[in-house]
């Protein structure tokens, strides 16, 4: 983290660089002067191409290698349903499914997903045709502010798939026995999705209903 003093210096530097770039633009080749100014301000960006499928549509992108899958979705493809919470894999707001598995889209680079198939909340359902999990969240009031909800719903859909395919969890009593969809299983498996409003009990009810077993 920067100290306040450092911040002042970097702001002033930024203004000087920006000013030089504007002045140079007036008299010389704009492109050359600007790239020189940017190079002085920070390490130059490296751009790379990536092609991936998002909600069934092929997307060809040219991105700074630093771009996370989350930022590619939000800032470059304008799919803003996926949310940025902590940006460090701790809150789960950025959860999407890649090749059928839920991951934190903030902790993976877009360029690492050449050929991947990504499903975001926009690909699960639409306002006129909700995914059953979306409908259950509405019915059970599984949210308050709604910011974590797209991540919760993507995670919840994946959780039911994981239970169905027999992947055990920390609370599964027997590693080799068939799994039940219990509230304890849902809570453990959803622990990577934080809800600051505390709608957890309603979230568990919504997921339980979709799983088709009593709460």
């Amino acid at each position, binding site marked *: 983290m920067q100290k306040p003093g450092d911040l002042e210096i970097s702001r002033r530097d930024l203004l000087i660089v920006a000013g030089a770039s504007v002045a140079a633009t007036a008299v010389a080749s704009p492109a050359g002067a600007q790239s020189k100014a940017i190079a002085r301000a920070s390490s130059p960006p490296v751009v790379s191409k990536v092609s991936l499928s998002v909600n069934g549509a092929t997307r060809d992108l040219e991105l700074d290698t630093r771009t996370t899958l989350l930022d590619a979705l939000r800032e470059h493809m304008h799919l803003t349903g996926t949310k940025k919470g902590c940006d460090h894999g701790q809150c789960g707001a950025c959860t999407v499914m890649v090749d059928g598995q839920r991951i934190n889209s903030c902790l993976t680079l877009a360029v690492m997903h050449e050929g991947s198939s990504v499903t975001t909340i926009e690909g699960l359902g639409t306002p006129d045709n909700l995914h059953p999990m979306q409908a259950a969240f509405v019915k059970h009031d599984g949210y308050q502010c709604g910011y974590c909800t797209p991540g919760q719903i993507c995670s919840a859909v994946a959780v039911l798939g994981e239970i169905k395919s027999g992947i055990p*969890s920390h609370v599964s009593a027997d590693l080799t026995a068939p799994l039940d969809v219990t509230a304890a299983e849902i809570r453990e498996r959803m622990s990577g999705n934080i809800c600051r409003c505390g709608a957890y009990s309603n979230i568990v009810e919504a997921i339980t209903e979709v799983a088709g077993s009593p709460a």
Partner: protein
Amino acid sequence: MKSFTYERATSPVAAAAAVSRNEGAKFIAGGTNLLDLMKLEIEIPTHLIDVNGLAFDKIEPTSDGGLRIGALVRNTALAADERVRRDYGLLSRALLAGASGQLRNKATTAGNLLQRTRCPYFYDTNQPCNKRQPGSGCAAIGGVTRSHAVIGSSEACIATHPSDMAIAMRALDASVETVQPDGKTRKIPMADFHRLPGNTPHIETALASGELITAVTLPKPVGGTHIYRKVRDRASYAFALVSVGAIVQRDGTGRVAVGGVAHKPWRVEAAEAELPRGAKATATRLLAGAQPTHDNQFKLALVERTLAAVLAEAKG
């Protein structure tokens, strides 16, 4: 995050050679720890070599009855593998006790071993840290040390290794298979893979520059009751204060490795001779020479009590 160039590895040896040639280069696989640290500019690679395309994603039987786990096998896939669940339950249990479902889907076997400490002073770039910036000092010593090491630490570093999986791998006598930039391969026993901090806490493993993990191998199953008990501040998705991984046989003999107490998975084979005599005798031997701080001396009692609970559970 600082900018970096990026390439996809085409072969293990070429990837190893590329990293050994370039001081700023790093491998990236799951990326769940590396990208977190890059955002904070704790890790500042200038070049990333993406190894995800290499064919290290299988779990195969070995000729001596064990299992060879590819370096890129994801934590979820490893925990859910039928052979692992049946014969190496300790490994499944340890994996499932760690991180979140999303992270386990992305994190790899090799990356799990290579994850960095969660010492808060390592994460705070305003603080000195010998691991982050060799020679700068250790802000944890004299700081808030509830989560830190109680044994095997040094005057340079009191960080712990955060992995649950590594505790199981140590108790199971796993070996880490690698390939070096010149194409040579070797097997490093888990006992020797992670290092104690000493005066060089920034050097965390036995890996040489550019050396790439290709697999982790498990010897043939040893039977017994497999238990991984993790004590933490939350019931899920938190690092261990203390964890105990054990394999207990019917006659009361067994193996035990402990997490959350040291810079590496903590196992003392000589202490295992005490297992039939119970938790107190075993823990006393296991933690002989411990140097806890005021904040973390509770971990000594917690190891003993957690081990007692594990042994009671093993008896059934």
